[in-house]
């Protein structure tokens, strides 16, 4: 049972304010379809390499593990796609990305296309889509194993072993195996329905009935905690010159930190503490961490981070600050909690979450929609009480607070 049912409830409002709505997901899906059609069009320089019986273009990164969140305060999502082509032996390590860059020109509704070191980034009004190219290993290989290209503006390019698809399968398998946690999934699902914000224009999405490209949503304590920690890190690193730890690295730790028995806040504590442990070890040894893809040892999840002790110290301190702020908020009033959420997750998101709480509470009946835990004197909204809470609590007896003008109230006129 959650140690802090109300605090977890407020965190859930923040988390569901950060994620893709179902409608947003449909638009994202249509972007992936457009990507496939665009790269396979007759004039595409990559078309001859993409013809295959199975799709060689697929979603990767946060969308494949259900951890996509909005970036900054501008309601933008960052998404990733992988394109597999059998790279001819004569190509140098820049050519595949160069051709992908050319092939993506003219993509519908794109505002800007940038060639990055390992991907091509397409910038749309409300999303960025990073497209990476992979040269798959020849068969027999584990599913989707191959090499991506590191192709900097200056200096020598090289290949990097990778299997993000396998990582996503590993991540999802772990989450699914652990199952639900005391009714958390139902609460999350209810809250998502209540809080869904369509940030993207669904009218632009395809409405046809094609097989899905995106994996189904993945929900669990671990994923929601990961979303919140990622959001916190995004804001922390926004104005820093230091490089942010890779999202996939933090994602792996979100699983290896284990499942907390103390609800969502407990899961965030578990992840933050796990990261602190990793940084302490790396700081003492002045090397690492060297986190590998659990299904493909050659795939180093954080191969370009950390570069210095400063990187390690900074992440460690961020996690210490997160733990301290969470602890402070956990003992605070609702107003203090949302003020702390503003510091941790951004003012706009915190305000949205507070509004949703307000709407939910205002939508109750004019009787007592709460349950009461006698041991602590805690009041939990009946609508969001998990079965475990319901079991140890009882309804607050019906009543109405009075207006304060009954006999005995002293007014200036008395």
């Amino acid at each position: 049972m959650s140690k802090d049912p109300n605090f977890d409830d407020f965190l859930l409002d923040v988390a569901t304010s950060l994620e893709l709505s179902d409608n947003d997901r449909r638009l994202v899906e249509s972007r992936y379809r457009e990507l496939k059609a665009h790269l396979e069009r007759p004039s595409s320089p990559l078309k001859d390499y993409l013809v295959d019986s199975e799709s060689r273009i697929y979603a990767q990164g946060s969308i494949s593990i259900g951890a996509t969140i909005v970036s900054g305060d501008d309601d933008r999502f960052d998404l990733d796609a992988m394109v597999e082509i059998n790279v001819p032996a004569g190509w140098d390590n820049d050519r595949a990305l160069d051709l992908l860059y050319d092939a993506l020109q003219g993509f519908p509704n794109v505002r800007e296309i940038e060639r990055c070191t390992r991907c091509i980034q397409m910038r749309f009004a409300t999303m960025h889509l990073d497209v990476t190219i992979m040269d798959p290993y020849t068969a027999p290989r584990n599913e989707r194993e191959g090499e991506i290209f590191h192709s900097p503006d200056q200096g020598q390019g090289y290949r990097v072993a990778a299997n993000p698809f396998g990582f996503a399968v590993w991540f999802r398998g772990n989450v699914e195996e652990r199952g639900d946690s005391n009714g958390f999934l139902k609460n999350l699902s209810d809250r998502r329905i209540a809080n869904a914000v369509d940030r993207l224009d669904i009218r632009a999405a395809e409405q046809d009935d094609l097989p899905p490209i995106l994996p189904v949503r993945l929900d669990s304590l671990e994923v929601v905690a990961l979303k919140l920690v990622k959001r916190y890190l995004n804001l922390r690193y926004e104005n820093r010159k230091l490089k942010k730890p890779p999202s996939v690295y933090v994602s792996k730790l979100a699983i290896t930190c284990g499942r907390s028995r103390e609800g969502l806040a407990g899961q965030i504590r578990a992840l933050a503490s796990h990261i602190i442990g990793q940084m302490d070890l790396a700081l003492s040894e002045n090397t690492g961490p060297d986190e590998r893809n659990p299904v493909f040892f050659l795939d180093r999840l954080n191969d370009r981070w950390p570069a210095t002790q400063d990187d390690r110290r900074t992440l460690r301190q961020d996690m210490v600050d997160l733990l301290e702020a969470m602890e402070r908020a956990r003992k605070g009033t609702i107003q203090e909690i949302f003020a702390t959420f503003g510091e941790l997750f951004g003012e706009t998101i915190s305000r949205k979450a507070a509004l949703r709480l307000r709407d939910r509470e205002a939508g109750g009946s004019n009787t007592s929609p709460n349950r009461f835990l006698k041991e602590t004197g805690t009041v939990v909204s009946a609508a969001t009480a998990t079965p475990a809470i319901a079991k140890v609590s009882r309804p607050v007896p019906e009543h109405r607070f009075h207006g304060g003008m009954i006999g005995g109230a002293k007014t200036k006129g008395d």
Partner: protein
Amino acid sequence: MLQVKYDLCIWMGTVTPVQAQYRICVIWDFIRQTPPYVTLIDPEIAPREEGNWEDIPHLWFTEEAPQNSGLCLFDPEGKEWDRTMLIADYTIPWACEWIKYYELWHLTGEWLGPSAKGPESVGAARRQAV
């Protein structure tokens, strides 16, 4: 902590209605069997930033020492309370619920809990009367 002084039964204890802890005091006149009088001791009640004491909703408002005002927990005309009701089963849950809505009021400026008809605060009543 329970004390019996003269004809008053006084209980002081700590509750955690939402996340913050409050020390509250319940005073019950067991001779006259009037409704229990509940106040917040630590932290005391406080108005919203730049607000007035008299605008705190649902209080037995005490002008001279507003921080000692009691919580208005039920509608006397609605027959929601009678002297057979155990303080632990009715007054304390209602007081904790009051604190929850009081915290939400501090956040939003609105009282989101169940309210009897009429003005929510002495301040509102005074403005209505003008």
